[in-house]
């Protein structure tokens, strides 16, 4: 059964320096509060895994938490570049960042293989592109039945999988719905896992298309209302598209980025204070 604990205790107990950590959530339900807690606790040398690094990994990379990034699309959706990611790759600031780069289909196959306890995933992919030449976790395999050559990608087995969901019950059973992305696979592929949730309810109300992860398959559940912001939680709050637009200017400049992270993340104790600090800024 998952322990229901404060987020700070979950990160302290389960995320270690040098770990391979996957914070998943495809545009929806991005676990920003957990990312902020990793920054507050000053984790270092992490291998960060995520299909779409998004603002959450722009922040972790800019704060020097990462040594390596495993990903498939690293932009600010609908806006442009992730400037902290670019600064790390193009100018080694604040530290060099090693890349392991895939396509979305390849990353999805890698998570599914990890969840299924297979050493690799198979897909029709990458043929004719330059990606296999720069990424060692892409190879080919011959089908033993048809002789066809297919792409093989090594399984993802993160040390820690972190997701954000709408609800958990008191037993730590977790339910998410709306765009469910690759979160179930990320949790089941990982050795340890953390789920932050919008609310803890006496009993889960089953939702159409909802994904339930039983509490015994999750290590820690932490209450973090608003914990996906600026991403969203279907049924709770909308994506803060204006924030994604504003992030372009905040993140473009190193000093402005550091000042923003200091005020809204490092000097706040938790997700509640983070939201209050943003509200003060708007007032």
């Amino acid at each position, binding site marked *: 059964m998952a322990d229901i604990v404060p987020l700070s205790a979950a990160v302290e107990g389960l995320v270690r320096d040098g770990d391979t950590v996957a914070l998943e959530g*495809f*545009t*929806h339900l991005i676990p920003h509060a957990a990312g902020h807690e990793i920054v507050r606790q000053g984790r270092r040398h992490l291998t960060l895994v995520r*299909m*779409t690094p998004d603002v959450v990994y722009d922040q972790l990379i800019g704060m020097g938490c990462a040594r390596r990034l495993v*990903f*498939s*699309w*690293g*932009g600010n*959706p*609908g*806006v442009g*570049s*992730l400037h902290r*990611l*670019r600064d790390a*790759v*193009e100018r080694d600031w604040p530290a060099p960042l090693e890349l392991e*780069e895939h*396509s*979305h*289909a390849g990353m*999805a*196959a890698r*998570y*599914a293989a990890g969840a299924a306890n297979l050493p690799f995933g198979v*897909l*029709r*992919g*990458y*043929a*004719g*592109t*330059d*990606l296999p030449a*720069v990424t060692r976790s892409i190879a080919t395999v011959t089908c033993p039945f048809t002789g*066809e*050559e297919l792409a093989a990608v090594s399984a993802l087995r993160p040390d820690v999988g972190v997701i954000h969901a709408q609800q958990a019950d008191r037993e730590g059973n977790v339910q998410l719905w*709306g*765009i*469910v*992305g*690759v979160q*179930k*696979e990320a949790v089941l592929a990982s050795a340890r896992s953390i789920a932050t949730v919008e609310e803890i309810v006496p009993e889960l109300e089953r939702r159409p*298309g909802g*994904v339930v992860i039983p509490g015994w398959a999750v290590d820690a559940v932490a209450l973090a209302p608003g914990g996906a912001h600026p991403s*969203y939680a*279907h049924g709770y709050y*909308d*994506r803060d*598209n*204006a924030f*994604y*637009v504003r992030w372009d200017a905040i993140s473009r400049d190193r000093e402005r980025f550091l000042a923003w992270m200091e005020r809204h993340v490092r000097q706040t104790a938790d997700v509640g204070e983070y939201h209050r600090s943003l509200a003060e800024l708007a007032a």
Partner: protein
Amino acid sequence: MSGACTADEMMAVAAARMLRDGDVCFVGIGLPSQAANLARRTHAPRLVLVYESGTIGAKPTRLPLSIGDGELAETADAVVSVPEIFAYWLQGGRIDVGFLGAAQIDRFGNLNSTVIGPYERPRVRLPGAGGAPEIAALCRSTLVVMRQSPRSFVERLDFRSSVGCGDGPGDRARLGLRGAGVTAVVTDLGVLEPDPETCELTLTRLHPGVGAEEARAATGWPLRLGADLAESDPPSQAELDALRALTSAGDGAASA
């Protein structure tokens, strides 16, 4: 042309017209999403929009900023996981048209969305390939929409993220790629299509007011003109109204 219309508006309208009613279209964010949503509001109301977030049959009322905006899920016929959208629906062969953009394209319709400069030390680190390599490989056909300039229409890609016709005729079959590859490239100047013999992208249509020399100057390889070089019909008032309603609603959402 019906009133003043920008080159970007002409591009969006020309791209939207490429989609047929009833097509199942895998939509990239940005210009492709704008064109696909315009098509659904004009001549192709039964166009099925599929986004890589797993939303199948999305019917957004405003232009989404991301491929995973909540409205896509709320209006979709089905919402599936990311592994499922790529494995069962795209790789399963159920998508008619892939609709992509890119930073660079070459004469064979190969696309770069990864880096400008060398991979290990890029001058510009672009977002990366995302869903595009398998979209370009597996859809029955692929449309590209991008602004035409010598920086984007290049002799040689800095990185090949997605395959059009590869190195030329027969290359897709050799690579085992099932779809037809890039069948049209819609730009702010006109439309390019692969020559059936050589696979080389050839100018087949110019937008009103654009000359062939302008298109040649905006292309990094010696651009050949199609034998039946035609002129695009200017946008109708209905097309322009629909596009402007769509983009102003989208802008409103982004700055709210």
